[in-house]
């Protein structure tokens, strides 16, 4: 009598197949994920890339301005790769304008691809962002805010999946010793970017910038941490080339620092 009960508890095959089909359909409707093109990242991401209809959060590793700049470039590079098709626009909303557009152009986000808007407060920025997401005519939306609670992030996540537009929420540091990613959020992925020393060149000069890229949290996946070379002029990241002779490189750096 036990055996028949257990078989009746097991869900029958037909509804299960229907559920699976529904799930794959929902996944297809959510839009394709944008891969980074680096196997080390894509392999560890649940979607094998960044979901094109969801909220992603990015923050600097520390409250310093250089980490801030690195995180900005990381967001700009992702936006540039979302907006590769000609004529598509990225919307960048923020409260305090200190971006320098020539620098953004050098990661592939040219002036004809970005539309900026400056709001007076975080709430104005979030309202604009939600409008832009629901409109669905943009390639990507970036918003810089200092504070966004879980309700705000949930609204953004819903708007992003409704409008099928990727959303990058850039969280600025408010209190110097507290990470802005420590609060609750509905984001699909949460990234923390910081600067690390670049590889020394054989001649004097600054090499390609290098970042520490930390995926702090992702849905359906595990966090990880990597060191990556910064965005090139198309917004693509790269794995650092393995140093052939670490001892001699260190000696070069020491001689240059002098």
């Amino acid at each position, binding site marked *: 009598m036990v055996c028949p009960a257990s078989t009746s508890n097991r869900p029958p095959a037909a509804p299960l197949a229907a559920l699976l089909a529904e799930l794959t359909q929902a996944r297809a409707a959510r839009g394709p994920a944008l891969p980074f093109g680096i196997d080390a990242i894509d392999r560890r991401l649940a979607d094998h890339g960044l979901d094109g209809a969801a909220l992603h959060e990015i923050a600097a590793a520390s409250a310093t301005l250089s980490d801030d*700049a690195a995180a900005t470039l990381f967001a700009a590079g992702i936006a540039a790769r979302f907006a590769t098709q000609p*004529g598509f626009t990225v*919307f960048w909303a923020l409260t305090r304008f200190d971006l320098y557009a020539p620098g953004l152009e050098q990661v592939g986000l040219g002036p004809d691809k970005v*539309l900026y808007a400056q709001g*007076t407060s975080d709430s104005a920025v979030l309202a604009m962002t939600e409008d832009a997401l629901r*409109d669905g005519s943009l390639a990507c939306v970036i918003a810089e805010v200092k504070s966004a609670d879980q309700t705000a992030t949930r609204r953004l996540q819903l708007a992003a999946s409704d409008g099928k537009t990727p959303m990058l929420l850039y969280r600025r540091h408010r209190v110097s010793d507290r990470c802005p990613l420590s609060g609750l959020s509905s984001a699909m992925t949460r990234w923390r970017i910081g600067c690390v020393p*670049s590889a020394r060149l054989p001649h004097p000069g*600054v090499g390609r910038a290098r970042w520490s890229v930390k995926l702090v949290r992702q849905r359906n996946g595990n966090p990880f941490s990597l060191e990556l070379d910064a965005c090139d002029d198309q917004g693509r990241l790269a794995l650092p080339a393995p140093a052939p002779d670490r001892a001699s490189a260190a000696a070069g*750096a020491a001689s240059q620092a002098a």
Partner: protein
Amino acid sequence: MREMGRRSESAEHPFKAIPADEGGASIQPAPAPTWKTLWGQPMILITRTGQREMVTAACPVALELGLRPGMAAAHARALVTDLDVRDADPDADRAWLDRLALHAVGHWTPTACPSSNDGMWLDLTGTTHLFGGEARFCRRLLRFLERLGFTGSIAIAGTPGAAHALARYSGEAITLLPPGTETKAIADLPLTALRLEPQALLSAARFGLERIADLYPMPRAPLARRLGLATVRRLDQARGLVAEPIAPVVPFEAPRAERRLLEPIGTAEAITQVIGDLVDDLVVLLQERGMGLRAAHLTCVIVDGTEQHVAIGTARATRDARHLKRMLGMRIERIDPGPGIEAMMLVAPRVEELRAQTLEAGLGTSDRPPDIAPLIDQLAGRIEPDAPFRLSSHESDVPERAVRRVEALAKPLGWPTWKRPVRMLRRPELLSHVVALLPDHPPRRFTWRGSDYRVVAGDGPERIHGEWWRKPQEMWAVRDYFRVEATGGERFWIFRRGDGVDAPTGDLSWYMHGLFG
């Protein structure tokens, strides 16, 4: 009188310019009376056709001196010394006439238009009694022109042709012609008064025809054969035998829709309903005229006589009712209905031409980028009075001046590919404790915002010169920019004032300006 010396240098007159303290005359002699001081300087306007300069107009003083329109300018200059010669500007004259015609349409008569390039026709039928009769209207018009700085002569006649002739050739400021006497009144005027072709005037002069009266007894068929059919038509038009309608100028009226309400309203739903009706009315008007609006102005008249205003602007000309309703709906909360709104008006003060547009075939394969103009309007509504913008390059090497805001639908230009930071400080911040090798090396260490940085690598210098045409202080100023990396991996954009060699280029102080990630 010429001093011995180089012929290329003009020598000063030896007795003319002695300063007063060296024995020269301290009191200037009174200027001798000239034409200029007595009557004002004569002035003429000229036009150039190829090498030839012709007088097109002369002021009263010049006319008294014997200068006439149609003279060669060289002749006029020879006749009168001290002549003020200026270029004629027919386009500006035409613009004045058009403005005057619009004013006439608004104030005097609905039918008015410029006639040739120096006059205006007003159809005064049934309007002069509003101004106290024809004579009073003419005096009033002349005074109006006088206030504007114009002189004029007016003729009121039964036909436009006769009025044209009398106003220009009767020699009186005001001519009022009783009806039915046109033929007699213009009989003594010269033939040019009839607006004839130059060719016809030449032929008429050859036949010895000088006055309009000379044409009356002539048989019509030979007249048309000799002087052209146009001449006969002009003559008939002036005598009133053939009609000559005046094509009036039509002033532009901003499209407007209005709703007067039976009962005062105060709820948001009611206001939304009225706005929807107004937008529907306005869209029909715009569609008839082939226009799209760039700005709309909503006025709500409150029961107590005050008014509430709401304005919207659009990034591109539109007459999409849904979009307009949504944009006005976003601003309903700013309307304070008070005791109730009794009338609402929607006006489009700024419109642009908007013709029918082809629809995209909805096959789902088009890769045309989506239109973001409605979104821009919506975003602008969130951050009024600010608006979304793009950044475009501006021709300047100084980094903070190389970026300029342009409007959201403009086509911006890119920048050169020099390495530039992604975030810039609002203004450069002074670095302290800088250790650097002059003139061409990045610093080895520096202190910024209270922390010390050791530099491990640097690129530079990139020399940027000041823009002397903006400020005199930038005449010699030089900034040497370096891109440096500190031990912790921070990458900075710093600059030094001065090139390290010449002192006027700067004081060799170091500044932080931006951050590379």
